[in-house]
């Protein structure tokens, strides 16, 4: 059924149809309408869930962490300062491998106080272990919710997903949105069956001390799982398309890129403007295309490299900056095109207090002389790792 909705309400409809059990959130502009509408759904009985009011975003994130730990599908939404206040808990949610879905209504960070859109809030959390998707329009953000739960709750993934939508431009912008039936959603998104949960009948401990002998492996496991996410996202997108008839999630979206000499790279709602701009410039005889980054974490390096390697000019347009360095997206894309000497390899070591010894450095030299690596983990104890959850 097509409805004329603002992006916030399109999200609330999708969360309702995803049959979440616990919602906790703290209001912040421009996210407020999402949770206001969800609170209405719970109050009028349309959604059988607990809506837990809290005193801050840190508490909201803690509540949904707890809900997910007990095996319940949970949801929260926030923005800007709220996301940053949540950040301590967000790293924990990824570390605990809990499949939460969070919508971030992207907004600038203080100071000065600014309630309008950019991507600095979410981009600042890019190293947290969360999967990050960026929506271009209201239909996309609606559809991303179902697919985000499907992706996060895959028993071999078990990582949280942050669905990003541009504050105001999408949250408050009205567009026709195709809302599927509950039957269709149920067919795509079965009830959540956690591989493990907090349960008094079968007690276990979560969030334990991970000393220098095990911490590094937990990070390595997330890094490897995010590589699996790159393979799973197109499959989930295909399955979504087969049920709903619309395009599903992808790593990237190409717009008139194949024959283009020059390419603009961007994320989020600005891609709509860029597409119209490309149409205009093509009429003027310019060979221009767009590469839209849908999945920013994990970063689809190979795919981006293959699409950009034969282009003449690449323009990376981003709404965030790593102050004192460059735009994060620019830095990452630029790092894919390092052909000339010296060869630069990247190594990860010493996480969580693991000693970096001469042996570590020897391994680095051996690997670095032989291969081209960008995030090679040194000193990994593979006996600590499994394909599935284990106790």
């Amino acid at each position: 059924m097509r409805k004329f909705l603002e992006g916030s309400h399109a999200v609330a409809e999708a969360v309702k149809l995803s049959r979440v059990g616990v919602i906790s959130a703290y209001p912040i502009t421009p996210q407020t309408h999402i949770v206001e509408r969800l609170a209405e759904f719970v109050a009028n009985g349309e959604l059988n869930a607990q809506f837990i009011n809290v005193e801050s975003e840190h508490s909201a994130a803690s509540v949904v962490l707890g809900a997910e730990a007990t095996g319940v599908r949970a949801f929260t939404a926030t923005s800007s300062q709220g996301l940053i206040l949540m950040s301590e808990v967000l790293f924990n949610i990824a570390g605990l491998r809990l499949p939460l879905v969070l919508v971030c209504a992207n907004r600038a960070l203080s100071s000065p106080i600014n309630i309008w859109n950019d991507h600095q809030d979410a981009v600042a959390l890019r190293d947290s272990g969360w999967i990050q998707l960026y929506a271009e329009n209201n239909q996309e953000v609606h559809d991303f919710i179902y697919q985000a739960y499907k992706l996060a709750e895959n028993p071999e993934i078990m990582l949280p997903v942050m669905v990003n939508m541009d504050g105001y431009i999408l949250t408050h912008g009205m567009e026709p949105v195709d809302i599927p039936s509950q039957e269709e959603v149920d067919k795509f998104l079965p009830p959540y069956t956690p591989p493990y949960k907090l349960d008094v009948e079968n007690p276990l401990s979560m969030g334990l001390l991970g000393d220098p002998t095990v911490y590094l492996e937990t990070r390595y496991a997330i890094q490897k799982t995010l590589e699996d996410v790159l393979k799973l996202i197109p499959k989930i997108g295909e399955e979504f398309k087969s049920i709903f008839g619309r395009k599903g999630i992808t790593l990237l979206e190409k717009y008139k890129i194949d024959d283009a000499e020059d390419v603009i790279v961007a994320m989020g709602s600005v891609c709509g403007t860029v597409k119209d701009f490309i149409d205009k410039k093509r009429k003027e005889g310019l060979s221009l295309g767009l590469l839209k980054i849908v999945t920013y974490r994990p970063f689809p390096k190979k795919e981006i490299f293959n699409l950009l390697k034969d282009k003449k000019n690449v323009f990376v347009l981003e709404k965030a900056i790593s102050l004192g360095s460059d735009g994060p997206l620019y830095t990452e894309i630029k790092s894919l095109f390092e052909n000339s000497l010296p060869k630069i390899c990247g190594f990860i070591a010493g996480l969580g207090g693991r000693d970096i010894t001469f042996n570590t450095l020897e391994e680095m030299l051996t690997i670095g002389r032989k291969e081209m690596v960008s995030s090679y983990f040194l000193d990994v104890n593979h006996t600590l790792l499994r394909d599935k959850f284990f106790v």
Partner: protein
Amino acid sequence: MFGPLVAKPGSSKDNKTGSWRMLKKPRFLHENCVGCGMCKLICPEACIDKKDKNFYEPDYSYCKGCGLCSYICPKKDIVMVKEEE
């Protein structure tokens, strides 16, 4: 892929916190003990046990050497000594 994330109850027993002890350890003199049990109650590792009447002993596998038992003992019957003594 998953690293070690969860544990069954009781796993703290595997964590021999006695290895954290530095410089000093408590010595129970067993001379003036009146059996008040304050050492057992205050021990943050709960590693002091009553073995007999007026006779308490710490489990050095878990004792971190914090010295609280020595501090609280009303009879000064527990003293902190160098690890090698």
